[in-house]
C-alpha cells in the first residue's frame, strides 16, 4: 500500500513552536494519510510531544498551519479538535480517578467526534472495555488497576468517540516485555481495522512492526522521513538518535 | 400506672413550688432580653456604650429588690445574646427572645440597620422598642409603620444642624472664618450625615473647601488629613466612626492641622479618646455630649465605674441607660408586664432620666444633645435640641 494514493487526512505545514527563546518545533511539515499508521520518533526533547500537543490543541502554534480534512485547525481549542475527530493518550497515564472504569470510557464517547448518550453509550463503552480486555473490571476503582490496565483503559477512552485520528504518545513506555507484547498486539488490531494513527515511541520494535511510515525529529526539525527500515538505516538518524553503536 | 407515677412526682413539685412562692425574695421575676454584638465589626462600639449600661441598670434595679410592680417587686432576669454583628442572627435572637424565652421586654438592639431589621418582630409581638443607637431621617415614616418603636438619639438633620449652628456661633464670635473641610466614612450614618450637612452648611454661609469620603477600614488616612489641611480650612468636620475618629485625630495632631474648630463624630465622647490624647483632646468637638456636672450624671458615672469597672462614654452610654430608666418607669407606672399598656404609657408620659426629662412626641424624643466638646477632661454638651445646661463652646487652641 502506498500512502500517496490515499487521501491526506492531516496536513502539517511549517509548524513552529517557541517557548520563550527555546524553539521546540521548527518548521515541521508532514502529512498523514487515511488508514495510515505514522511513527513520530526522535531523541528526548526533540519536540515530538510538543508536536502532538499542537495537533490536539493543547499548545497553540507559534506559526504555521495544521489542516484536518482540509480545514485549518491551527488556532482551534482542544475540545473543537476533539469533536472534529482527533483523540489521544498521554505520555503519563491520565485517569479520571473518581469515575468508575466504565465511566472513564464513556467520558470519551459522550462529547467527542461521534457522540453517544444513555444506554447506547453504556453498551458501546462495554464493547470497548471488552476489546481492550477489561470486560471484568467495569466497576473496579481506577486506582486499583495495574499499569497496563490503566493504559488499556486510556486507549478505550480514546477510541470511544470513534476518532478519525488517534494520537498515541509513548503509549508503550514503562511496560515490561510481556506487557509490551499485549500492547503491540492491541495496536496491531487497530491497524488492521484501518484506523489512522500517529505513534510517538521509543520502542523501536514497536515502530518497526506497527508503522507504515516514520517521521524522525531532532532538535525540533525533521531529519528523515520514510518507511521504518529506511529511516532506521539513515546515517543521520543513527547518529542523532541511536548512538554510534546503537540498534 | 402512669397516673400514680405522675402523682408521686406532682406532690413534691407542688411542695417545692409552695416554698418558692412563700419566699418573698423570689416572689416574681421579670424576664428582659438583650441582643447586641459582643464580637464582629460593631462590637467595638457596643461593648463601650451598650452592654455596660445594661449591666449597670440590671445590677441597680436588682439591688433595690427589683422592678416595683403592683404585685410586688420583680427581679430582672436578663437573657443576652451575641448577634456577632450579623443581621440574620439579630433577627433570630429577637425571635427567640419573643417566642421561645417568652421574655417580658426586649432591649432594642445596637445599630441603625439592626434596629430596623428587627422592628417588624418587635411590632408583631407588641414589644416596645426604645431605640438608642438608631439614627435615621425616616422617623415619621417608621413610627407610623411600627407603633411601638421609640427614638431617643435623634435624627441626622438635627445633628448636622447643630454642628452648623455651633460653627456659625464661632464664626460670629470671630473665632473662625467660613472655610469648612468635611470628610466622612463611607459607611452607615457617615454618608447620611455628610449628605445632610452639605446644604445646611451652605445655607449657613459656609464654604465647603474639602469634601471627601473614605471607606471603612482604610489603614492610612494621611491623604485625607493632608488633603484637608491643603485646603486651608477654618474648621474640620469628620463624620467618622470609632477607629477613624482616633486615626484622624492622631494624624491631625501630627500634621498640625491647626483649626479652631475640630469635630469628629462617633467615639469622640469615648473615655478612651481622652485617655489616648490627654491634653490634646481639649477643645475637640464631637457628636453627643451630656451635662456631666448634674448630680444624676455624676452618680451615673460613679456607679458605672464601680459596677462595670470602666468609665462610660459621654453620649450613648447615658442615653442607653436613660432608655432603660424610661422602660423601668413605664413598667412601674403601669404596674405589671402588660406590654400594650407599657407602650401606651410610653407615649403619654414624661420620664426623668440621667440625661434629663424624656418625653416622646410621636414616639420621638425631640430633646437630645447634639454636639459636645472636651473641656477640662470632661465632654460637655455645647449644643442640644432643647436640653438645658449647655456650656459655651471654646475655640481649640492647637494640639
Amino acid at each position, binding site marked *: 500500500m502506498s500512502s500517496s494514493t490515499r487521501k491526506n487526512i492531516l496536513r502539517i505545514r511549517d509548524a513552529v513552536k517557541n517557548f520563550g527563546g527555546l524553539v521546540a518545533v521548527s518548521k515541521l511539515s508532514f502529512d498523514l494519510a487515511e488508514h495510515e499508521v505514522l511513527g513520530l520518533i526522535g531523541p528526548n526533547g526533540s519536540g515530538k510531544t510538543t508536536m502532538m500537543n499542537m495537533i490536539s490543541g493543547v499548545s497553540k502554534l507559534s506559526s504555521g498551519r495544521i489542516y484536518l480534512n482540509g480545514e485549518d485547525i491551527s488556532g482551534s481549542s482542544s475540545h473543537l479538535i476533539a469533536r472534529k475527530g482527533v483523540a489521544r493518550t498521554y*505520555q503519563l497515564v491520565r485517569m479520571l480517578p473518581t469515575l468508575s472504569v466504565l465511566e472513564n470510557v464513556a467520558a470519551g464517547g459522550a462529547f467527542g467526534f461521534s457522540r453517544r448518550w444513555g444506554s447506547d453509550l453504556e453498551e458501546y463503552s462495554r464493547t470497548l472495555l471488552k476489546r481492550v480486555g477489561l470486560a471484568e473490571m467495569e466497576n473496579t476503582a481506577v486506582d486499583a488497576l495495574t499499569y497496563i490496565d490503566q493504559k488499556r483503559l486510556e486507549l478505550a477512552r480514546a477510541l470511544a468517540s470513534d476518532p478519525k485520528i488517534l494520537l498515541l504518545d509513548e503509549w508503550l513506555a514503562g511496560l*515490561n516485555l510481556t506487557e509490551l507484547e499485549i500492547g503491540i498486539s492491541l495496536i496491531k488490531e487497530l491497524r488492521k481495522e484501518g484506523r489512522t494513527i500517529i505513534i510517538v515511541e521509543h520502542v523501536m*520494535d514497536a515502530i518497526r512492526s506497527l508503522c507504515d511510515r516514520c517521521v524522525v525529529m531532532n532538535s525540533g526539525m525533521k531529519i528523515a522521513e520514510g518507511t521504518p527500515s529506511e529511516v532506521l538505516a539513515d546515517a543521520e538518524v543513527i547518529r542523532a538518535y541511536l548512538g554510534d553503536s546503537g540498534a | 400506672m402512669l397516673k400514680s407515677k405522675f402523682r408521686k412526682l406532682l406532690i413534691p413539685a407542688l411542695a417545692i413550688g409552695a416554698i418558692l412562692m412563700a419566699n418573698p425574695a423570689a416572689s416574681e421575676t421579670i424576664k428582659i432580653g438583650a441582643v447586641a454584638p459582643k464580637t464582629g465589626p460593631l462590637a467595638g462600639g457596643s461593648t463601650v456604650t451598650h452592654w455596660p449600661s445594661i449591666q449597670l441598670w440590671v445590677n441597680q434595679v436588682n439591688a433595690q429588690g427589683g422592678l416595683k410592680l403592683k404585685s410586688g417587686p420583680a427581679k430582672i432576669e436578663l437573657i443576652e445574646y451575641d448577634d456577632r454583628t450579623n443581621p440574620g442572627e439579630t433577627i433570630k435572637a429577637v425571635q427567640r427572645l419573643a417566642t421561645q424565652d417568652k421574655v417580658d421586654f426586649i432591649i432594642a438592639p445596637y445599630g441603625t440597620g439592626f434596629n430596623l431589621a428587627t422592628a417588624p418582630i418587635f411590632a408583631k409581638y407588641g414589644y416596645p422598642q426604645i431605640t438608642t443607637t438608631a439614627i435615621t431621617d425616616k422617623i415619621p415614616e417608621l413610627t407610623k409603620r411600627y407603633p411601638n418603636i421609640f427614638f431617643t438619639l435623634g435624627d441626622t438633620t438635627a445633628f448636622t444642624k447643630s454642628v452648623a449652628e455651633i460653627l456659625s456661633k464661632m464664626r460670629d464670635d470671630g473665632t473662625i472664618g467660613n472655610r469648612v473641610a468635611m470628610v466622612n466614612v463611607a459607611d452607615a450614618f457617615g454618608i447620611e450625615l455628610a449628605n445632610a450637612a452639605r446644604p445646611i452648611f451652605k445655607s449657613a454661609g459656609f464654604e465647603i473647601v474639602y469634601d471627601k469620603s473614605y471607606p471603612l477600614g482604610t489603614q492610612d488616612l494621611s491623604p485625607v488629613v493632608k488633603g484637608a489641611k491643603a485646603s486651608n480650612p477654618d474648621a474640620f468636620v469628620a463624620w467618622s466612626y470609632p477607629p477613624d475618629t482616633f486615626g484622624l485625630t492622631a494624624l491631625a495632631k501630627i500634621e498640625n492641622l491647626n483649626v479652631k474648630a475640630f469635630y469628629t463624630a462617633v467615639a469622640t465622647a469615648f473615655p478612651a479618646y481622652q485617655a489616648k490624647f490627654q491634653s490634646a483632646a481639649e477643645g475637640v468637638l464631637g457628636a453627643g455630649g451630656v451635662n456631666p456636672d448634674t448630680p444624676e450624671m455624676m452618680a451615673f458615672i460613679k456607679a458605672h465605674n464601680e459596677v462595670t469597672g470602666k468609665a462610660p462614654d459621654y453620649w450613648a452610654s447615658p442615653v442607653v441607660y436613660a432608655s432603660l430608666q424610661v422602660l423601668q418607669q413605664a413598667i412601674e407606672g403601669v404596674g405589671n408586664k402588660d406590654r400594650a399598656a407599657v407602650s401606651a404609657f410610653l407615649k403619654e408620659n414624661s420620664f426623668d432620666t440621667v440625661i434629663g426629662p424624656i418625653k416622646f412626641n410621636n414616639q420621638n424624643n425631640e430633646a437630645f444633645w447634639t454636639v459636645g466638646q472636651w473641656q477640662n477632661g470632661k465632654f460637655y454638651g455645647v449644643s442640644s435640641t432643647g436640653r438645658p445646661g449647655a456650656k459655651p463652646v471654646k475655640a481649640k487652641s492647637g494640639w
Partner: protein
Amino acid sequence: MLEIKNLSVFYGRHRAAEDLSITVSQGEIVVILGANGAGKSTFLRAIAGITPYARGGFVSIEGNDISHLPPHEIVEAGIAFVPEGRGIFSDLTVKENLALGANPLRARKKQSENLKRVLKLFPKLAERKGQIVRTMSGGEQQMVAIGRAIMSSPYILMLDEPSLGLSPLLCKEVFQNLMKVREAGLGILLVEQNAKQSLAIADRAYLLENSRIIKEDLASILVDDPAVQKAYLGGNGDETGFKEKLV
C-alpha cells in the same frame, strides 16, 4: 553495606511487598527486575523512609539500624534516593539543587570535594550552574538528580527507573554514568524495566514477582536464564527481533 531483612508493605489489605530481603555492598550495582505493579517502587520508597512498612522489617546501613526512620534521617545515614520523576527541585537552579544535596550534616564537610566529583562526572552541569532545572532536557535533569544524590556523600545510591522516558541514546548515557558512579566506590541499587541494559551493567540482580523475590543471582547468569529471558527480555518464537533489538 545496605542490608534489608523481611521488609513487607501493606496498602490496606493489599500486600505491595512481602518479606523482601536483599543486600547491596559498596562498589556493586544491584538491579531489581519486575513487572509493573510487582512492588519494585514501593520497595525502594520503603527503604528511603517515604512509605511506611510493617513492623518486623529491618534495614541497616554500615551496620547501623535505620529501620522506620523518617526520610531525612535515612539520607543522613548514607542512602541517597533518586525516585521516579527524579525528585529534583525544578524551580531552583542547578547550583542550588547541588547545594541542597549537600544538606545532610555528614555531607557538608565534604561539599566541595563532592561537587568536584559531580562536575567531573557531568561536566555539562558546570556550564549550566545558574540554569533553572525545569528548563533543561530530560537527560540533563537526570544528571542533576544523580549529581544531587552524590552530593549527599552516600554509601548507597538508589534509583527508581532512571531510564524511563529517555531516548535510547540518553538511556545508554545514564547507564554509563552509573558505571562511573560505581567506580567512585558507591553501591547502587537500581529498579528497572529495561532488563537488557541494566543487566549489562549490574553485578547482581533480584527478580520480583507479585511482591516477592522469586530469584536472585549474578547478573551474568540471569541474562542467560530462560525464565528471565521469557519474562523480561522478550519471548522466543515470533518476536525474534526483540531480544537483540531492544536498545
